[in-house]
């Protein structure tokens, strides 16, 4: 039951409106951070209200006039939109608290621009989540690229600028493909609104529908980091870690995956996709991405780049789940969308805390670091367990449904791919945890550092390189002794509390997933898309 209300518009407008006061109070950091917090809290509140309504089937919708002749500028908080909006707003709250600690910990420059762009990015993500049609989604999708560009290039170093150029080139070219797809789609069907069973009239022209589908999949695939199009994500790791955490684990890449979900389920509809045989190619692309990214992650020595490749792989879990077009797989995909967000943001926040406190960026240097950062490494271990799919943490639940869905679709090879990808995750994450908990000298023998990558050479980019070695670590011969810290003194609370909260979230999603609103929303979406059940 759809009710006209201004809730969705407020949900999009709140973070965007916060940009102005943040810019104006640039001179007073505390007041500026207060504005960010206020906006984050307000957004979480609104998202919670919208989500609870959506879970009960009450869809809030607000139409603001016509964007283009025949297509309204409209926001609609249906179950899928509310799910993504709630997820993004909750994690924005955690990330903004974390950002304050991170930016002040490293005394970063241009903090005002950082926080303003951050709020703008979340605002546009809300826009993507709550769009009622593909063109409104495209508008906010492009604005998201523009809002995140200053964050990717925050350090303004040569490497950051190069990463920025690649980022713009990839994402905006993807945007062109999406626009082309929307134009063809609109020319064929005359409507781009989201309809649970798919827009009618697509079957009439299979060729044009196929072209539109390909264009849209490639376009959204860029941000969903499907393999050939994922080049920008590892380079974007040059951004400050909270950006990598929230944006490149949650907002930006998830908006790509979200776009794909909208296209496959709400524009083409499961039936049309299956009848036109368009599901399999997407599934194969996702499967290939999972495996290739999983392998590439093994070769990375820098922690954040490794996490980036693991993100690429994990995103394809969701894409494959959707491409399988069975209720269990879609449900698993939606739950994984949430689970992966919580787990991956925890890992990134831990990586950020490690960097702020010890300046360590490479896995090789993390030997025995748990003594210095016990709480952080515990959270890291929990999240890693989740990613691998060990029971008790969020990842296991979603993977269970994904594998079930794959079997239900009779696609055994895809089920095997899931398990194999989980194994690759194990090979990637578990050594890191072991190194962190082992003592100093265990590291040398355990993991042969790959070729030139690992050899100790000058840091590339990063403000850290200028002032010589990482702070707080004595460079005696070979092994570095960490001074032991207790969980209370290891790091500032702004860094610690958010990452523990997200780790706790992952645990809650693992142990009692059905208590969370995400579960009901995912179920509502699945019911909506597969009325037969």
């Amino acid at each position: 039951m759809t009710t006209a209300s201004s809730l969705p518009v407020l949900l999009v407008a709140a973070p965007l409106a916060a940009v102005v006061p943040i810019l104006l109070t640039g001179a007073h950091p505390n007041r500026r951070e207060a504005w960010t917090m206020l906006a984050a809290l307000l957004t979480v509140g609104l998202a919670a209200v919208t989500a609870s309504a959506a879970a009960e089937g009450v869809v809030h919708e607000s139409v603001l006039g016509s964007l283009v002749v025949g297509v309204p500028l409209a926001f609609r908080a249906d179950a899928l939109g509310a799910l993504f909006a709630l997820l993004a707003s909750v994690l924005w709250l955690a990330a903004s608290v974390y950002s304050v600690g991170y930016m002040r910990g490293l005394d970063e420059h241009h903090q005002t621009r950082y926080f303003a762009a951050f709020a703008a990015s979340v605002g546009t993500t809300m826009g993507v989540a709550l769009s009622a049609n593909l063109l409104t989604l495209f508008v906010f999708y492009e604005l998201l690229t523009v809002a995140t560009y200053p964050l990717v290039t925050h350090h303004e170093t040569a490497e950051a600028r190069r990463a920025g150029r690649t980022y713009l080139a990839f994402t905006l070219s993807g945007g062109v493909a999406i626009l082309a797809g929307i134009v063809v789609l609109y020319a064929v069907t005359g409507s781009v609104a989201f309809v649970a069973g798919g827009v009618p009239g697509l079957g009439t022209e299979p060729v044009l529908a196929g072209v539109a589908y390909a264009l849209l999949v490639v376009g959204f695939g860029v941000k969903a980091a499907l393999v050939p199009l994922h080049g920008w994500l590892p380079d974007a790791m040059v951004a400050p870690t909270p950006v990598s955490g929230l944006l490149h684990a949650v907002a930006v890449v998830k908006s790509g995956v979200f776009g794909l979900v909208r296209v496959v389920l709400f524009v083409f509809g499961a039936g049309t996709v299956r009848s036109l045989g368009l599901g399999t190619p997407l599934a194969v692309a996702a499967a290939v991405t999972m495996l290739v990214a999983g392998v590439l992650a093994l070769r990375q020595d820098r922690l954040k780049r490794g996490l980036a490749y693991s993100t690429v792989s994990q995103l394809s879990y969701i894409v494959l789940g959707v491409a399988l077009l069975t209720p269990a797989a879609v449900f698993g995909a939606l739950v994984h969308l949430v689970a992966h967000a919580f787990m991956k943001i925890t890992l990134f926040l831990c990586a950020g805390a490690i960097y702020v406190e010890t300046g360590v960026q490479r896995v090789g240097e993390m030997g025995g670091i748990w003594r210095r950062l016990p709480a952080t490494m515990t959270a890291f271990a929990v999240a890693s367990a989740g990613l691998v799919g060990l029971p008790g943490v969020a990842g296991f639940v979603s993977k269970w449904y994904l594998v079930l869905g794959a079997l239900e679709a009779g696609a055994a090879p895809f089920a095997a791919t899931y398990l194999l990808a989980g194994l690759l995750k194990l090979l990637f994450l578990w050594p890191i945890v072991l190194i962190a908990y082992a003592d100093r000298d265990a590291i040398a023998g355990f993991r042969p550092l790959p070729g030139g990558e690992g050899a100790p050479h000058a840091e590339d980019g990063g403000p850290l390189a200028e002032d010589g070695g990482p702070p707080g670590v004595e460079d005696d011969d070979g092994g570095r002794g960490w001074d032991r810290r207790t969980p209370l003194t290891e790091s500032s609370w702004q860094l610690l509390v958010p990452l523990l909260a997200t780790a706790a979230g992952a645990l809650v999603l693992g142990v009692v997933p059905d208590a969370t609103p995400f579960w009901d929303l995912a179920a509502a979406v699945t019911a909506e898309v597969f009325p037969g059940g």
Partner: protein
Amino acid sequence: MSDAVVVLVALPVVAATVPPVVSRRVDGVGWPVAAAAATAQTALATWVGWRVLADGPLRTVVAGLPAVLGIELAVDRLSAAFVVLVAVAGLWGLAYTRRGGPRSAPGASLYLLLLAGLTGICVVRDVFTLYVFLEIAGLAAYALVALGDGRDAAPAALRYLLVGTVGASLYLLGVGYLYVATGALNMGVLADRLATVGYDDRLVLAAFVLVAVGLGVKIALFPVHTWKPDAYQAAPPGITAVLAALVSTVAAYALVRVVLAAFTGAFLAANPRLVAGLRAAAVLSIVAGALLALPQRRVRRLLAYSSVSQFGIAVAGLALGTRLGVLGGVVHLLGHAVMKAGAFAAAGTIEAGYDARTVDEFADAAAHQPVASAALATLVLGLVGIPPLVGFFGKWYVALSAVRTGAWATAAAVLLSTALSLAYFARLLQRLYLERREGRPTPAPVSTGMVASGVLAALAALGLGLASAELIAALRPAIEGVPP
């Protein structure tokens, strides 16, 4: 009440005679007179626009003669949009030139003559008088370019004059052929007589090609675009902004008007190959304009080449021969005029306030000229085609119409123009915010009018973008005689 149309043209001409006379007594009188005249013109234009919206087109014939004989002036919704654009841009340009541009008496009267010529083009429905107004506006534009204070102003103005006059003369030859073929010059009469003469008549086809090429030179489509970069680089900044906004835009409007009112949709339908040729030229202009813009080092030349590419989109819209395509082209013309004028104003402000001419010298401009840089960045994003700025919507309609009529090359070029324009604008964006610049710039004073003009244009680009659907709905009735 339709005499207001004549006053629209007469007012700036009469006002243009005032500055040289009065300046013999009182100096510095140029700008105030121009401001007063531009304000009156804007008021009159908006009033006429509102009347046209309310009661339909205003029509009058000079000297009360029958339309076949006399010079018919008419303002329908399409003309009203461009008359208002000319008047508003004229007034807006004065905000910039209060300090930035020429303040001499001749400068002011040339500025008013330019407005008169452009308004004349928008209202006239007689193909020969259109030529006269084209040359009045052209002459004023050539002279205004020559007012630039660099060494390259006079040569650039002369080059612009030579190419512009050759273009206008080709258009005149086209008019001559039309007259020989049909014996009429009024667009309405031409439309009927061309139908009887037959659309495959060699004389009529030659006339169409000559008219298209002549106006193509004025629009600066590739390959007859060479005058635009030099002229826009050499002219004073405020003048470049107004020229960039109006001269080519109104020439493109003239092409739309002549093709739709004189040749009509039937002619386009009867000659698919000719229309495909026009579309091919437009597509070539989109791509070539972008490729030529890539290596440019000076910001104004970069923006000028971007214009060549953007006008390709508008002409492609017309050349689709569908109502939606023409409407898309017209919205793109109006939107591009606003964005390009604002971009030149903001770039001019940075050029003066930060002593920067090349893209590299624009490095770190955001720190020194934050507002102008923000305006320039917004407008550049609009030119790239990022929604919700107006740059996106024109392309949407043209691309949609191209896909519907199966003109795949046009659709691809229009859509790819976003990526192409990003390729040459990304450098500028990156310099503005992310790079430092060695050396001490020697800034010149920058007036609030200069900065405000950039910001106003950015807001207008956003406003037009959000209201583009209403704009299309308002202009729709004015485009007839073409399939939907």
